[in-house]
């Protein structure tokens, strides 16, 4: 019995001292990357000229540039400012992060290059912001390689927000936000709040990967530098893994509405010289389709609920038919908004980003198969009508 106990205790004792030897990780040996910004250097591919195998391929072409934004742990703690004016600084002053930049063939090559400059292991598991440069969106091959790395690596954080960096990437990653220590935390916070504002379309990397894999199309928010803050007010439209166009920010709300992703936001409506804000609390859309000859006729029913946030101080909104009239004007305005957005995508962009192709594929598969080969053309010619209902639920605490 004693021998039996010894036999069981001995491996348990050994486990205490020998387990985890190879993968033992000290937290101070890791550099946690919060922002990864990648851009293409637009190098022409020489594969066609030379198909022979070479000895060394590392660092021969500077195909992409990557910037890793890493927080400095000792500086991420806030210290109260000396004049008591609120807002903290970093211990010892200076930035709370460093940006490591390098060029190389692809991201693993760049990580290897940075290995001789960085005293810690780069860790991608806590990436909050994944920035794609404008040049990367023009270089299909580099974009595909970058996306594949991010998807294939088991440690890459699939919940990282993805955005397009408009302008110089270095300018954006060097922004020191006022309310946060790191750009990634600041931008991630903006995206987290996006549901309430409907002025943004946040995209996680996991969502981007599954969307873009279908047909090579995706929609990404754009980040620009404005003073020492970020400006996120456009959407980048990607077609066949390349940048197609930038969409004006005013179309974001109707775009989200038609794609049934609108969850909040405020719409303004004019009523007798007063701009009335209508806060949207929910939005649903239902699509129906009829095929007439070679023409697709969509009817999109949109139903919204919301509250009135402001009226005229000396007026009483609950009187007579004021609410009815405001509701009617809201519906008309929203209908015009949706129609203008649809016309924009049909005539200017010429590509279906409104989810009508997906709807037709899911619910009218036989019809979709007829137009599958040239769906964008069918979309551009389609007749899309809207039927909008906007219910006003609450008017605040005053009449």
């Amino acid at each position, binding site marked *: 019995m004693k021998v039996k106990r010894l036999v069981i205790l001995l491996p348990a004792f050994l486990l205490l001292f020998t387990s985890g030897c*190879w*993968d033992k990780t000290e937290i101070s040996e890791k550099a946690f990357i919060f922002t990864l910004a990648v851009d293409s250097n637009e190098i022409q591919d020489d594969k066609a000229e030379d198909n022979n195998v070479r000895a060394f391929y590392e660092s021969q072409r500077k195909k992409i540039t990557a910037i890793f934004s890493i927080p400095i742990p000792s500086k991420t703690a806030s210290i109260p400012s000396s004049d008591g004016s609120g807002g903290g600084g970093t211990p010892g002053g200076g930035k709370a992060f460093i940006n490591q930049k390098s060029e190389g063939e692809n991201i693993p090559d760049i990580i290897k290059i940075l290995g001789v400059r960085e005293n810690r292991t780069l860790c991608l598991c806590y990436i909050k912001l994944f920035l794609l440069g404008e040049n990367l969106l023009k270089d299909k091959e580099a974009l595909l390689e970058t996306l594949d790395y991010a998807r294939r690596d*088991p440690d890459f954080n*699939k919940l990282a927000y993805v955005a397009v960096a408009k302008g110089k990437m270095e300018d954006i990653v060097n922004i020191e936000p006022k309310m946060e220590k790191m750009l990634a935390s600041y931008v991630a916070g903006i995206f987290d709040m996006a549901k309430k504002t409907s002025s943004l379309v946040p995209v996680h990397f996991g969502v981007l990967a599954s969307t873009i*894999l*279908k047909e090579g199309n995706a929609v990404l928010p754009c980040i620009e530098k404005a003073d020492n803050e970020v400006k996120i007010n456009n959407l980048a439209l990607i077609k066949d893994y390349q940048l197609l166009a930038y969409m004006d920010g005013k179309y974001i709300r109707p775009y989200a509405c038609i794609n049934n992703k609108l969850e909040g936001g405020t719409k303004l409506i004019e009523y007798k010289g007063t701009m009335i804000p209508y806060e949207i609390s929910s939005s649903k859309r239902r699509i129906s389709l009829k095929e007439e000859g070679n023409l697709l006729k969509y009817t999109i029913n949109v139903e919204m609920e919301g509250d009135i946030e402001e009226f005229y101080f000396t007026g009483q909104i609950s009187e007579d038919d004021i609410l009815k009239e405001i509701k009617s004007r809201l519906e008309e305005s929203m209908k015009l908004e949706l129609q203008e957005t649809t016309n924009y995508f049909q005539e200017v962009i010429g590509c279906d980003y409104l989810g009508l192709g997906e709807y037709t*594929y*899911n619910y009218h598969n036989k019809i979709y198969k007829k137009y599958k080969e040239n769906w964008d053309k069918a979309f551009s010619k389609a007749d899309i009508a809207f039927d909008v209902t906007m219910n006003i639920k609450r008017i605040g605490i005053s009449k």
Partner: protein
Amino acid sequence: MIPDDDKISNFQAALIVFNFILGAGVFMFPSEAAKNAGNDAWMTTIVAGLINILLIYIICKGGGEYSRYGFVGTCRVLFGRIFGTILAIPVFLYFIYAGGMTPRLFAEVIKLFLLHNTPIEFVIIPLILLGVILVRSGIEPMARFFEVLLPLTIFLVVVLVVTVLPGSDFTNLRPFFSGTIPGYLKGILSTSWAYAGFEILLVIYPFMRSPGKAFKSSAVVMLAMTLLYALVVMLCIVRLGVEETKTLLFAPIYIIKASEAPIGLVERFEGLVMALWVILEFTTFVVIAYGISVTGGDLLNQKDRKHILPIIMPLLLIFGLQGESTVDFFKIVDNIRYLQTYTVVIIPLVILLTVFIKKKVGKKSES
């Protein structure tokens, strides 16, 4: 008071079957199912589960008649000593192969997500050693261990659903019935392999207190597994879409990584899921190891079976280390299907037919 006869109840037998089935297969089958059946992968998964209930019926009907002899004993009684032994050997080889493949598969997933630098042998060997220790104590302690784990398994499933469901797009399941018949058939066949595990019933019959009721409890388990597997593949498709599900090796782990945990729970939830999954994979290996010890002991006419596994252990390691890369290894795993088909379909059918014919002949000679 638990009787000290090393026999298990029907519930415990059902748990053994449940824990054998629930292993690495649950992470790997969605991509194959989606490749063959597309959006309708969840339907083919349900059909595959129902077909496996039929196979369980065949095992229970045939094996139940001679349950006191065990599997090898049944073959020897029905087909003669020599021929019966020859028929039982491929089943023994199947358990050895499965016993080699399971730790390797476990190690591959662990190396990919958790232990990048640890040599694969040092992930496989502790699993095998621990499994051997548990199996040596007998079937009853094993079954009690599985009873303790049941709440953890249920917790894992609930957490998976709660984490992944928000933000899912159920229109990804459409359009329904858009695949081809050959695709559906291929999907049903490939998903059937993921349900493999109930063949352990062949082996544990002599250890059940009421073997006559084995089918009822096993069928309930298979129904639960069918629902679970259908749920897993449905969650993969609604979360990722069919195209991405097809391309991912371990789609369920990916969807947990790509989902935000509900407010109040930890971030990076996949760590907790992986920890619980390690236990489930261990139980799968333990059941296979038990199959090896019982079948091997019966083939070699051993009264006590404790020494069989330590002798077989090096073979398990050798089989487990076959295949240079993960891709090669998965190709080798496909080869095990022949032995699996023999164990799951052919030998139970042969046993059932022989029992049926013997009964008929017996009745005729009586009359």
